[in-house]
């Protein structure tokens, strides 16, 4: 229809630009409603996602409450003053180290868990049982980190926590899971896995469902047992899914969510628990060092993007389908 209208219009008008405006008129008369619908989301994105980008400049400027971003004077050392300060700031270096360590531990210990869980779930035959286990495993994903912190208190506190009650009843020594910096790391990783393994297994289960049953059939005719089928058919079948999720996890190795570390940390374990996001909150919003913390945030996002692109490039080099 549009094409017909276009032809009509172009034939009628001899001059190009006139034809073009007329063409636009016809087009808009038909499609204006779509632009009306898109208006609000685009305004939202421009204000709440793009507008803040101008404040990123504060990383290179001396923050002043009375001036706007453009008027603030540039910081010393060609504007890099605050980056230099950050890398001489012990608290920041510690937060950076903790962020990377905790993320690496999450990746090494936590990444395989949903894959293993999906493989196990896939072996269950009783549909009802399978569904019940899945429902139970998804439950922790719906709890907020504050609630998980509440649960952790009830489980892990030295004298009153369930686990320590069991340990002391068995004649052992109470373990300070939440108050000892090293034990805290273990608790943090465990709670992270507990919260997400069920939910993260959904994607793997979907990938497993997409594997052709004929492959299993052929394998079992050839006498392959369960474990061999798992190893030679299921795992290769979900390899590309694993790679995509691995890229995303690697891209996030320096990223830090706020809710989980902030809810779980306490003053006794700060040496291992302070991560970049909580550092930025405490020194920026609470401590009002806006330029320093913006610089830290910018460093974090730039390095994050570099990691993501590198991981993606690497996986393509290795012959896998990348993320983009």
């Amino acid at each position: 229809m549009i094409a017909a209208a276009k032809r009509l219009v172009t034939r009628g008008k001899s001059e190009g630009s006139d034809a073009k405006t007329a063409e636009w008129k016809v087009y808009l008369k038909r499609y204006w409603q779509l632009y009306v619908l898109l208006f609000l989301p685009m305004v939202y994105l421009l204000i709440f996602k793009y507008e803040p980008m101008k404040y990123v400049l504060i990383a290179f400027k001396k923050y002043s409450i009375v001036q706007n971003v453009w008027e603030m004077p540039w910081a010393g050392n060609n504007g890099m003053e605050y980056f230099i300060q950050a890398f001489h700031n012990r608290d920041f270096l510690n937060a950076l180290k903790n962020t990377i360590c905790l993320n690496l531990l999450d990746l090494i210990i936590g990444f395989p868990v949903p894959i293993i869980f999906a493989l196990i779930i896939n072996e269950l035959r009783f549909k009802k049982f399978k569904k019940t286990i899945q429902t139970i495993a998804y439950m922790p994903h719906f709890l907020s980190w504050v609630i998980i912190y509440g649960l952790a208190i009830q489980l892990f506190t030295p004298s009153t926590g369930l686990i320590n009650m069991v340990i002391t009843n068995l004649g052992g020594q109470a373990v300070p899971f939440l108050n000892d910096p090293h034990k805290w790391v273990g608790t943090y990783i465990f709670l992270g896995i507990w919260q997400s393994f069920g939910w993260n297994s959904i994607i793997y289960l979907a990938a497993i469902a997409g594997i052709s049953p004929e492959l299993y059939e052929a394998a079992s005719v050839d006498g392959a047992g369960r474990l061999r089928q798992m190893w030679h058919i299921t795992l290769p079948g979900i390899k590309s899914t694993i790679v995509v999720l691995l890229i995303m996890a690697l891209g996030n190795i320096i990223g830090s969510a706020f809710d989980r570390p902030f809810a779980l940390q306490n003053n006794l374990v700060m040496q291992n628990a302070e991560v970049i996001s909580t550092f930025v909150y405490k020194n920026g919003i609470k401590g009002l060092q806006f330029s320093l913390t913006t610089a830290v945030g910018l460093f974090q996002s730039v390095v994050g993007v570099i990691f993501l692109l590198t991981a993606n490039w690497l996986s393509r080099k290795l012959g896998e389908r990348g993320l983009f």
Partner: protein
Amino acid sequence: MSIAVAKRPEKVDETQEVSRMVRSSQTRAGDIFFVVVCVLIGIICLVPMINLLARSLSASDALVKHEVYLWPKGLNFDAYTTVLSDIKYIKSFGWTVILTFICTFLSLAMTVICAYPLTFSKLKGRSIFNIIITITMFFNAGTIPNYLLMKDLNLLDNPLVLIIPGVLSIYNMIIMRSFFYGIPESLRESAEIDGASYFRILWSIYLPLSKPVLATLALFYAVGRWNGYSDALMYMKNKDFYPLQLLLYNILNNMNSVEVATQEGFSSPGLSEALKAATVMFSTIPILCIYPFLQKYFIHGVTVGAVKE
């Protein structure tokens, strides 16, 4: 496995028969093994909740003596009556319920009006819109720039700050769009020929067909709002507008000292252990009641979201 059994040839000689029997007994052992592992996993998931429930229903002296494990001792509902009669808590609970409804509704509306136009390949400028959207997924300005923006927009301490900044999640929008792509174009074209406007097509064709994905996204948005506390922590100083999770965070961190517990609104410190448990329990219940019913929908939603664009 069952397929293998079904395809079994009619005649089997003895050695094959034996090996099949061995294999099936292995399989049965395997079945039992996997079931046991799954039961253990299920227990690990549930024990913290059961323990919490038991504590919230126990008498305070049983708690002080460390006698409560997974079953309440001295069953009573005192902790719950205290929580329910605490005005501060109930107010925050109510506010969070209202907030969650508003946010979910507005977010769904935004998601739909963003995703729908982008499914039209004829839409001019579609690639520009897509670029605008994609960039925001890779680069986030960061905590402080966002905070300064809220400050400049005069949104600090304004309840709207808990609604507007998170009103559209691009990730959820992509799920919505993928679903819209799956709706056959012939449906749309026949409506176009009948002269239906694009508003009308959205309202009477797309939305009714999208109920499952709308339910999923409503769950995602509602859970996000119900569980979120960092925005309130950063942007809100007015305690009247604290969402439940932030109040809970303060309660959990302060209840260890009796004065603060009373200050926070709970006047009977003897209950404090059970009270903590009851407060946490009560804040969890709404979501725990809803999610199992939406399971088959959200599984689909997660899967669609994983498909690369």
